[in-house]
């Protein structure tokens, strides 16, 4: 135990530390600067020790050794520190949900089964306390997803900075979310009274699938009629929203857990000729070869989850990321949560402990999601021409103990203070 006399001294030191962390290393506002003397981890290529990164007008303008700072551009000395691209959480409810248990604070699930026209982006609350809490750990972008019964709506890729949701937009229609129908398993009945028997559950499932297929068929007919400019075609918001999905411009994020449903989902995406991304995928390891063959990326939920089956090995989900990557499947991590989004890098690290190569782990929270969401021209690595979404750390960002010193989005130095740090300071100093 700690000796008593040292407590006031420790307090002072800690308060000083907190204040120092709260102070940005650079002043906010100016989006042109030179980061000098750091270890740069571009992710897209090998690490560069003692290197500089030039940022001009919010974009990365150069990477190398001994870059000259153009006239008037600030120099930020980063000796001993590390430069990484900001991280991307590929599945959250950021801005849509504030307090999980309070309905009034949740705009995640709409009524109805077929809601492709719903847009998450317009319901993102830029003042959510979750945003500064999350970005303080180096996460600069997230995909925020509607949930709901089946076709839930459009998930948006957003920056964790902005006065309005328009400021935050990176890709407002990054994905169409489909919660693939499930056959309600008998096990789920423990949680419900008056549960339906299996035969009925199966019928319900088949009914849902039919509903879904018919909807896609109608949307296709609408698409054809629209292309043919058929006279008298009444505009339909639901079918309009489906057009970019049917054209393959917007991917269909299909959320499915079990092997059988993942296979059904793949068959469905094949049949409908849409671009599929698999979400969750707890049993994706059983389908890895098909996923590879069809080039379907997977947004994995937390690595540290219990196995699906009682008699699965205890580390079933710990080893899955490594198995998928070995099979050639592209993966990215999603927290599928809001309040634990800041722990995204630790999901990747846990997979490293169980065989995932470190480089792939880092990619799965940076470059891979940028590629999967079709924004690799703007985000995901430290490369010339990309936005300066950057985090500066004192070490490996996948380790809990590493501190994120500074975060930039589009070259703007962000305030890293948040509700948690404010309460910390307030109550640490309570007399």
């Amino acid at each position, binding site marked *: 135990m*700690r000796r008593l006399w040292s*407590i006031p001294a*420790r*307090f002072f030191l*800690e308060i000083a*530390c907190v204040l120092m962390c709260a102070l940005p290393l650079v002043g906010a506002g100016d989006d042109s600067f030179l980061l000098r003397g750091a270890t740069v981890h571009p992710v897209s290529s090998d690490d560069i020790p003692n290197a500089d990164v030039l940022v001009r007008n919010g974009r990365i303008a150069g990477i190398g050794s001994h870059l000259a700072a153009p006239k008037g551009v600030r120099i930020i000395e980063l000796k001993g520190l590390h430069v990484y691209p900001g991280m991307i959480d590929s599945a959250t409810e950021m801005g849509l949900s*504030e*307090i*999980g*248990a*309070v309905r009034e604070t949740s705009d995640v699930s709409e009524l109805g089964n077929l809601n492709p026209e719903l847009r998450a982006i317009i319901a993102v609350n830029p003042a959510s*306390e*979750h945003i500064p809490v999350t970005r303080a750990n180096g996460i600069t972008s997230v995909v925020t997803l509607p949930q709901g019964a089946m076709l839930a709506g459009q998930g948006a890729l957003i920056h964790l900075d902005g006065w309005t949701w328009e400021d935050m937009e990176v890709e407002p229609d990054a994905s169409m979310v489909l919660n693939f129908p499930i056959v309600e398993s*008998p096990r789920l*009945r*423990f*949680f*419900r*009274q008056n*549960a339906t*028997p*299996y*035969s009925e559950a199966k019928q319900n499932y088949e009914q849902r699938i039919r509903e879904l297929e018919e909807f896609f068929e109608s949307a296709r007919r609408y698409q054809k009629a629209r292309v043919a400019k058929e006279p008298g075609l009444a505009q339909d918001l639901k079918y309009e929203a489906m057009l970019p999905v049917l054209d393959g411009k917007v991917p269909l994020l299909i959320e499915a857990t079990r092997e059988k449903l993942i296979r059904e989902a793949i068959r469905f995406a094949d049949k409908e000729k849409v671009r599929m991304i698999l979400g969750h995928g707890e049993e994706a390891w059983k389908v890895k070869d098909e996923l590879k063959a069809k080039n379907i990326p997977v947004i994995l939920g937390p690595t*540290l*989850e*219990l196995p699906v089956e*009682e*008699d699965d*090995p*205890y*580390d079933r989900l710990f080893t899955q990321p490594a198995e998928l990557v070995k099979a050639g499947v592209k993966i990215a991590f999603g927290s599928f949560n*809001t*309040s*634990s989004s*800041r*722990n995204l890098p*630790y999901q990747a*690290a*846990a997979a*490293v*402990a*169980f065989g995932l190569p470190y480089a792939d782990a880092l990619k799965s929270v940076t470059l891979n999601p940028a590629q999967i969401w079709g924004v690799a021209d703007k985000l995901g690595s430290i490369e010339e021409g990309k936005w300066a979404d950057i985090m500066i750390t004192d070490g490996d960002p*996948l*380790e*809990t*103990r*590493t*501190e994120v010193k500074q975060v930039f989005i589009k070259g703007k130095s962000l305030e890293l203070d948040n*509700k*948690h*740090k404010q*309460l*910390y300071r307030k*109550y*640490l100093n*309570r007399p």
Partner: protein
Amino acid sequence: MRLHWMILCLAAGSLLAVRPIPARAASTTLIRNATVLTVTKGTITHGSVLVRDGKIAEVGENITAPADAKVIDATGDYVIPGIIDCHSHIAAESINEGSTSVSSMVGIEDVINPEDVEIYRALAGGVTTANVLHGSANAIGGKCTVMKMRWGKSAKEMIFEGAMPGIKFALGENPKRQGSGPNPFGNTASLRYPATRMGVEDVIRDAFTQARNYEAAWREYREKVARGERAVPPARDLKLEPLVEVLEGKRFVHAHCYRQDEILMLLRVADEFGFKIRTLQHVLEGYKVAKEIAEHGAGASTFSDWWAYKVEAYDAIPYNAAIMVRKGVLVSLNSDSAELDRHLNTEAAKAMKYGGLDETEALALVTINPARQLAIDKRVGSIEPGKDADLTIYDKHPLSNYAKVLTVMVDGDVYFDRDRDIAERPAREARRKELLEKEAQEQKKKPRPDKEQDSKPQDQRRPQ
């Protein structure tokens, strides 16, 4: 038919579950050349731990293996005391007796399922001891049990012998939920007092008033008997007896709480009745009243960084553990989850990131501190000669996200070994297939179940 299937599944489950490791082969084991993080006596970089007859016999740099010793070469590995989870519900067949606001007559000890695979999974995450608690539906819940992860042993043998028994209390949103209409799990049972934090206090004060009267009635009876007077003994009350034990300091109170007002309320009620709150559980706003908690002498067992899942968790901060430590509270980190208990080591690392605890202080949150909270620290919680040989070996520093558990010992016996677990997988998988095929054959022989049977009422258990 369904019943038949379920029985077969259960049988299959117990057969398939990872085989318990048989009783100790050698009574002396030497763990050699590891980094030994004793938690209470510093760190030995090239250290050894000698285990004899279930106890730690020697810890040091140069220990020679006795002739009969089994040697575990742990070069490059890290040894810590087995992790202690101060808030768990694993192995409990039921958790909440939610029909009444005071359920002190029920206890977890009666519903331990020693074949719950979550015990093995906890072991595989380095946990050797857990405080298995009743749920939080009631202001005064049921009795709790401290358990060792002696996988393969009977329920009775898993109980931590000599550990002080406990009782669960609960404050705030959970106990008042049943007074506030249907709960999230669709239970539309009639409303139950209390519906407010005011009512929660009243339930506790009322119960302890009754307990005090009950205690007095017994005292009076005993005094009469002692004086040789004729006396009629009071009727035994199984609900009040555990509360009398609390008043007498023979049973620990583990109180689920979130907000600072309710924390302070409970401390004051306990002061009034002259007992101590042993641990405040969750205690997410503990950092706001750390001074009062320390003054009362309660321990605090919290989450590392959970927040915002309900209103009373909206002011939760990841600095909670560190602030309370700095203000003199005995703090532990718990899981309350069969998943989270598997990586409490890295949860501890978060208290370094948020609030700047050092390595030893962080590890103490999941080892010696919970041991002290449960008053089992003479037996477990650190690596010291004379203590139980409950040890966890990692391949990397346990505060690193890259560490994984290799071997776990309880009472000197290896109950988890990763290599062994992996080696046994093909045989287990083969056995599983065999059983499934057998079941399929059985199914073929028998007529298909009709709908009547299919819609039989299912297990009525509700989630907690």
